[in-house]
């Protein structure tokens, strides 16, 4: 067999954790090979080893059949291995060409930068692989999808033969995802090989040839994607059966809980992030906000929760205006918030889980009396959340939040927020980066919360999530509401078009 990359029996241990126990991954030349695993299964560690950022404790790596030691990313580069990271590493105010040649600049007479020649080469590469990138555009002027192509071009420019794509579809619209699929096909047609890291089974099914599934640091198996159903792959990944369809009853909306009335919010740079936005969320319904990242969703959420000031307009909760209230007052009047970035906003990573579980209620009885923390009560409350939300950690409530895996951090936050039973729960990307098992569980909890007669505002970049969980869907584009549709009457295509700013025809 012609393998480009072979990683055999890789083991990597970090203090207290075995990230990779015994993983074997073989990449054939000219295939798209998906690497599938739950969060914390060891995908990133394995790829970091291949890219030279970590050294394995045990195991061998072969490139083109020869055993190699990848001591640094530079060595990986020389071996023809390139990686597109989840978060792009581009200089905003440089052109595409300048970004691509950075670090391997072409020179004239030894010292003079030769951008022209590089630009030409990039144009050729772009044509060859159907990337359609303008080499002279500035990064800040092009879309996120284009930026991703620039990252791919960067690797091609450095003559990479093996491309690692880390969760490449998270930031893309459905249409852009299809285009990325075409690009990947072009790449393998030209003899490149691709490792696709993802936990979206649908994309694996659509794009990948083979798939290696890992669970808890061990290879479970490598399968031909064509012969496997999504459910079977999910079962391999999680180790049990998973249901994809979210089970929920028809919603029975009651009174208006959240009313946003012509809200305008400015972003940090003083440009308008959310313009004249109005929306209602009723008790007993989940309203999803769909949109490509950065189209005003975060600004809406921050304005509702009080993290950002509204420029104009009003926000009402149960008929009472909360526009000018402090964050704490909003929390007390019944706003729960599952924040977008769990590590930045959601948790104090150096606090224990117990301390994190009372982040919003520590000043209330029974968690404190006359300003003195009541560790016993805090502990009991935390233990309760830990057991009802299945938060797994090394030392239970005493574990530092930092030591938990992403999924467990997220479950802890969701537990904390739902346990306060807020009349309005604002859930932003509640399942970002989680595996199917946790996603299923979190969706169930959100629907339960709805069924208890609360309002849920769900903001997500995952269209599937929006379509499956929401009762109504509001689509935003460029800070404006494109339209609101019933989830039952729409599909991915329509929402995708609306996300791109195409309005539904009146009356439809």
């Amino acid at each position, binding site marked *: 067999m012609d393998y480009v990359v072979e990683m055999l029996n890789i083991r990597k*241990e970090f*203090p207290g954790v075995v990230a990779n126990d015994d993983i074997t991954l073989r990449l054939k030349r000219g295939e798209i090979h998906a690497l599938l695993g739950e969060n914390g299964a060891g995908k990133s560690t394995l790829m970091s080893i291949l890219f030279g950022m970590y050294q394995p*404790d*045990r195991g061998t790596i072969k490139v083109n059949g020869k055993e190699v030691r990848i001591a640094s990313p530079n060595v990986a580069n020389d071996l023809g291995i390139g990686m597109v990271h989840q978060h792009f590493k581009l200089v905003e105010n440089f052109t595409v060409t300048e970004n691509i040649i950075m670090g391997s600049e072409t020179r004239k007479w030894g010292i003079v930068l030769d951008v022209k020649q590089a630009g030409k080469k990039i144009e050729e590469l772009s044509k060859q692989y159907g990337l359609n990138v303008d080499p002279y555009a500035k990064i800040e002027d092009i879309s996120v999808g284009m930026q991703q192509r620039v990252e791919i071009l960067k690797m091609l420019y450095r003559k990479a033969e093996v491309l690692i794509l880390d969760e490449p579809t998270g930031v893309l619209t459905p249409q852009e995802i299809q285009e990325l699929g075409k690009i990947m096909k072009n790449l393998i047609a030209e003899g490149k090989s691709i490792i696709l890291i993802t936990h979206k089974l649908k994309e694996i099914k659509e794009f990948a040839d083979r798939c290696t599934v890992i669970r808890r640091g061990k290879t479970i198996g490598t399968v031909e994607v064509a012969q496997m159903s999504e459910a079977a792959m999910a079962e391999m990944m999680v180790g049990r059966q998973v249901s994809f369809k979210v089970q929920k009853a028809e919603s029975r909306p009651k009174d208006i809980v959240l009313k946003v009335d012509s809200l305008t919010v400015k972003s940090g740079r003083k440009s308008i992030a959310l313009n004249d936005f109005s929306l209602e969320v009723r008790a007993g319904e989940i309203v999803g906000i769909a949109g490509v990242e950065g189209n005003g969703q975060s600004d809406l959420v921050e304005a509702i*929760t009080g*993290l950002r000031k509204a420029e104009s307009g009003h926000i009402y909760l149960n008929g009472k205006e909360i526009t000018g209230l*402090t*964050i*704490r*007052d*909003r*929390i007390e009047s019944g706003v729960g*918030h599952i*924040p977008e970035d769990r590590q*930045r*906003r*959601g*948790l*104090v*990573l*150096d*606090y224990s889980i117990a*301390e994190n579980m009372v*982040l*919003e209620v*520590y*000043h209330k009885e029974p968690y*404190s009396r006359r*300003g*003195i*923390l009541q560790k016993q009560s805090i502990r009991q409350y935390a233990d309760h959340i830990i057991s009802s939300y299945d938060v797994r950690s090394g030392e239970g409530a005493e574990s530092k939040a930092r030591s938990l895996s992403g999924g467990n951090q997220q479950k802890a936050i969701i537990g904390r927020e739902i346990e306060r039973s807020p009349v309005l729960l604002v859930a932003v990307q509640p399942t970002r980066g989680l595996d199917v098992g946790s996603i299923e569980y979190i969706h169930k909890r959100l629907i339960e919360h709805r069924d208890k007669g609360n309002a849920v505002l769900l903001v997500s970049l995952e269209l599937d999530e929006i379509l499956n969980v929401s009762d109504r869907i509001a689509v935003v584009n460029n800070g404006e509401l494109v339209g609101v549709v019933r989830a039952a009457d729409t599909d991915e295509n329509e929402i995708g078009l609306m996300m791109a700013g195409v309005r539904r025809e009146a009356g439809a």
Partner: protein
Amino acid sequence: MKNNLIISLCAVAFGLLAGAVLMLATGHNPASGYSYLFEGGLKNPERIGNTLATATPLIFSGLAVAFAFRTGLFNIGVAGQLLVGGFVASVVGLNLDLPQVLLLPAMLIAGALGGALWAVVPGLLKARFNVHEVVSSIMMNWIGFWAVYYGVQSFIKNPSSETESMPLPDAATLKASWLSDLFDGSFINLGLMLAIVVVLAVAFVINRTTFGYELKAVGHNRDAAEYAGITVNRSIVYSMAISGAIAGLGGVALYAGNASNIQIGILPSQGFDGIAVSLLGANHPLGVLLSAIFFGLLYSGRGFMNAMTDIPPEIADSIIAIIIYFAATSILVERLIRWAIRRRANAKLNAAQEGKGK
């Protein structure tokens, strides 16, 4: 907690080791050098008392730095806060005619307020304009330095000396004859008792109260604290004020306990040593107490070593500097320890695997 202790002890051990190398390199006998250094600090009750007295202002300054640090702030202006606190307290002590039981508390309150005032300025600047507290608190050091320079000469100048303030009357000092007698005439004073009370109070506030919980949350993660409804800016101002108040009390202990007047033109070195004390004490109140006493020991033993041997006192300073270095780079020490442990574990594992192979 236990880890921190090991790291601090390693830092001390490395520092002493490096000091021994220095002594050897300069042609001295480290064994006798160290025995005189420690004897100088511990030999008899008087020397022990002096060690504790030397440590007293360091406990306050270390605690001030540690408190700010635990709440995410770097208060590098402790020197100025000590000086201003000491000055304000001296003004009160020299001008109020009260019995000692009232005068001392009045001086302590004045000192704490003076220190707090000097620290609250950088706190407000940070909260309001996001000015980095390191820059502004260093500037406050010099403002304090010159303000006290002027203030001493204008209001409380010693008639017989151009460069110092009037000595405080006995009723206005922390000196206590029973305590000095207990330590055979050492200059140990009530400042030490006060320091221990403050250590316990700070430990309580930081670990047990909702107020401490808020301040630490802001220190660890401002965004999460804001998300939880904690008013971040107010916490920053409070943190700085409390840190400054602790330093101000240290100023009272320094100028109305260890000394009985203020020399102008000197920014107290204890202010900057506080950073080292806090680092070595892992920013923990009890750790600060122990590390301040250790620094006190080095400082007070240094003179004796110098007198008894021809080892220059700079060696003692170098040891202190090296200890600070290791304490400051404690992460490095921690990594070294972890690396050693892991290597051993892996070696074992590999051996076991190979054994199976055969």
